[in-house]
């Protein structure tokens, strides 16, 4: 019985190691929000630290598990084996294996603290963009105080720019996380946390709330959309406009006004004069340029006409517990509203 036992152990060790290595490979190549697929300097620093600690940990893992498995095989009980020597300890050895991990850990600590100061110091020079990320239950609002732009679910930024994010919540704690771009910073009521990141190449990056914030914590995602600076400028000037007033969608607009949507949602040019004066009572996302966004309601749906119709038909079925009531709209009303809202580019 002893022989298959240790054979099984070795086999399992090999299996474990294979699993470890292959899965890491998988993680590195893996597509979407992998932290090992960094697209900006901060995520790059954080990923580098991972590869460093992975190297150190793998070394320790192989050595210690190796000694363990080797001892299990070498010192297994066999017939006629004498009673082992009763060794109680060895002070020299103790000192050695207290000092050795201390050195290892000291090196790790030096890298930790150096990188931490790098990552946490918000650079002052170069191109800067200031954004306030507001955590709601359960969606993200993004305010651009300089540009006077308000958006939701999509954080549009220029590449190669220091994005200076101020984090604000008046409800519970949320956490701002874009794995490809930056680690987390919590959005704590009463603490005006700030962070920064920057994006190297244009693209769409998955972000999400990472602090448990209630019923729909799972559906509190957002996209970071990085554009080249010139396209970003175009986007900003588009977003600064009031909503288009196209007579083609007049029925949808009328429904927006009459069905109570304006109690929670603002549209500049309809029930708001500009982006500066949005009252606190409007608890839903500003919809002025809704049609230009990728996501609906904290990323629970992609923004397509079919999905928006589904959402308007019964928001509580799509995202139970969210603040939008079922308005009891008819199919034709839904169609009109969808056409109107999707036209708000």
């Amino acid at each position, binding site marked *: 019985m002893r022989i298959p036992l240790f054979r099984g152990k070795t086999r399992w060790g090999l299996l474990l190691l294979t699993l470890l290595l292959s899965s890491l490979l998988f993680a590195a190549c893996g597509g979407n929000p992998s932290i090992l697929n960094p697209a900006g300097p901060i995520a790059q620093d954080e990923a580098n630290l991972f590869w460093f600690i992975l190297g150190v940990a793998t070394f320790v*893992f192989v050595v210690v598990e190796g000694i363990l498995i080797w001892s*299990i095989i070498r010192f297994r009980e066999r017939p006629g084996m004498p009673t082992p020597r009763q060794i109680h300890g060895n002070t020299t050895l103790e000192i050695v294996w207290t000092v050795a991990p201390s050195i290892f850990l*000291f090196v790790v600590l030096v890298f*930790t603290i150096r990188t931490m100061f790098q990552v946490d110091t918000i650079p002052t020079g170069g191109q800067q963009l200031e954004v306030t990320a507001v955590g709601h239950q359960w969606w993200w609002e993004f305010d651009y105080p300089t540009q006077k732009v308000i958006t939701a679910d999509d954080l549009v930024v220029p590449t190669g720019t220091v994005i200076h994010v101020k984090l604000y919540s008046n409800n519970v704690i949320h956490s701002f996380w874009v794995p490809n771009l930056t*680690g987390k910073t919590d959005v704590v009521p009463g603490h005006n946390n700030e962070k920064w990141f920057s994006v190297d190449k244009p693209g769409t990056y998955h972000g999400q709330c990472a602090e448990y914030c*209630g019923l729909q*914590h799972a559906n509190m995602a957002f996209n970071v959309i990085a554009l080249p600076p010139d396209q970003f400028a175009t986007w900003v000037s588009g977003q600064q406009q009031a909503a288009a007033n196209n007579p083609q969608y007049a029925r949808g607009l009328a429904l927006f006004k009459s069905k109570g949507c304006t109690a929670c949602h603002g549209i500049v040019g309809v029930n708001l004069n500009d982006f500066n004066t949005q009252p606190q009572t409007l608890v839903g996302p500003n919809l002025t340029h809704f049609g230009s966004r990728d996501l609906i309601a904290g990323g629970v749906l992609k923004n397509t006409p079919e999905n928006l119709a589904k959402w308007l038909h019964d928001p509580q079925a799509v995202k139970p517990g969210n603040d939008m009531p079922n308005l009891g709209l008819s199919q034709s009303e839904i169609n009109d509203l969808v056409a109107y809202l999707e036209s708000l580019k």
Partner: protein
Amino acid sequence: MATSTIVERPALVRQKRFSETYIGQWLTTTDHKKIGIMYMVTAFFFFVVGGLEALLIRTQLALPDGKVLDPQTYNEIFTMHGTTMIFLFVMPMFTGLGNYVVPLMIGARDMAFPRLNAFGYWIVLFGGLFLQSSFVFHAAPDSGWFAYAPLTECGVQGVNCIPATPSINMDFWALGVLLLGISSIAGALNFVVTIFKLRAPGMTINRMPLFVWMTLVTSFLLLFALPSLTAASGLLLLDRHLGTHFYQAAFNGDPLLWQHLFWSFGHPEVYILILPAFGIVSEVLPVFSRKPIFGYTFVAWSGVAIGFLSFTVWAHHMFAVGLPVVAQAFFATSTTLIAIPTAVKIFNWLATIYGGKLSFKTPMLFALGFVAMFLIGGLNGVALAIVPFDYQVTDSYFVIAHLHYVLFGGAVFAIFAAIFYWFPKMTGKLLNERLGQIQFWLMLIGVNVTFFPMHILGLLGMPRRIYTYAPDLGWNELNLLETVGAFIIAAAILVFLFNFVTSLRQGQPAGSDPWDAFTLEWDTASPPEPYNFKTIPVVRSRRPFYDKKNPETADWKVAVH
């Protein structure tokens, strides 16, 4: 009147008092062994409850867009899974083991305060039932076992924080942990006094078995850590019901106050959950290697060092909350420091089996499995101390991988080592060896299949505490794999339950010393009489029972301690 009684009843048959019936003996007992067994059975019951909750979680997450649980139920289940496993399984399980084993190990007849001991047990039982009863009222706690304010004050459904109308879910939690805290304080005091005052003649502090050492350190941790949780829960209840604003930013309170109070309990708590496991492994490895523990003093004092340091590391749970960078550097350093005594322990365990004569009975398998798995939990723990990397993986599945390697690969493996090791002591019968081996291999495979992929999911950006995920994020296959692993673990637990029941009824008789052990608890009958020892043994070394069986090579003759 006396005469009439004699007439009505046959002579010589006295009515049994309640405390003499079988049930009554258990309900009224103050015997540390009976109380210990009740603790362990209760803890195991809650382990099964928490395990079923874990299976529900894994079933919900097996596929993207899971529809097994609605979001509210999922949030209740994950909250109760954590709360149950920590407060109602691991803690009472170690208290129960300590209750049974510590007085025997130090040659005492009972704990110092037997009635306080019984009180502690009953509070755990009723505190546990109180917490679980919340499911019956559709009001199970739903804000996580960490219960972060202000979520606990607004209610998980709220649009704006309106503290006036919270649902009662978190009241169950706050009152439940307050109750359980009372029990833990009582138990911890009892252990400290027992260990300091009731040791057999000759058993100096430096001759105590390492399990006793670790129970002592754990008890001190409980005494100093729990007040923080009590204060935090008390303030929470005040905020919720009496209109104070300790955690409410809008009224100049501070949500981070909760986190500081909670984690200055919560991190020592982590060691409360693992130090007794260190003690168990330090007992089991030597016996099945036929050698004394290597570096007794270092193993014992590294435990003490861990105990002290555990009070200085709490904010490493809070690296993402925006603390000043210098404060973070301090907590990164203290967290790194605490890895050193832990490493020392692992090296000493390796040195203990090195050069030994290893017999792979089930307790030994679990102890070796502990070392192998806990190492992984230690290494990914060091990774989490690397602050910038922690920004990425905190609150992701990477942390879940870490804590389950520590608490399942660590604490649970040690608990099974202890159950297989001391079951013969408690019952006089051996658990079935073949079933034990099957259980071990199932568990080892199950743990790695369930928890290893969580590292990768964390790296792939999967946050914790989400009840669902979209299918296009690259998380599908690994989640399914984890669910398969969870059911492998469940199968292992079923094997154990079957083994337990059958061995209890028709297990092989164990005799008083089935493992040729070293320590005093084996130097008496199995199970022991209520008074434990006919005569209190006299101790001359760290392995008194070994000395008794090997007078020629007794430790006190050849080793100085």
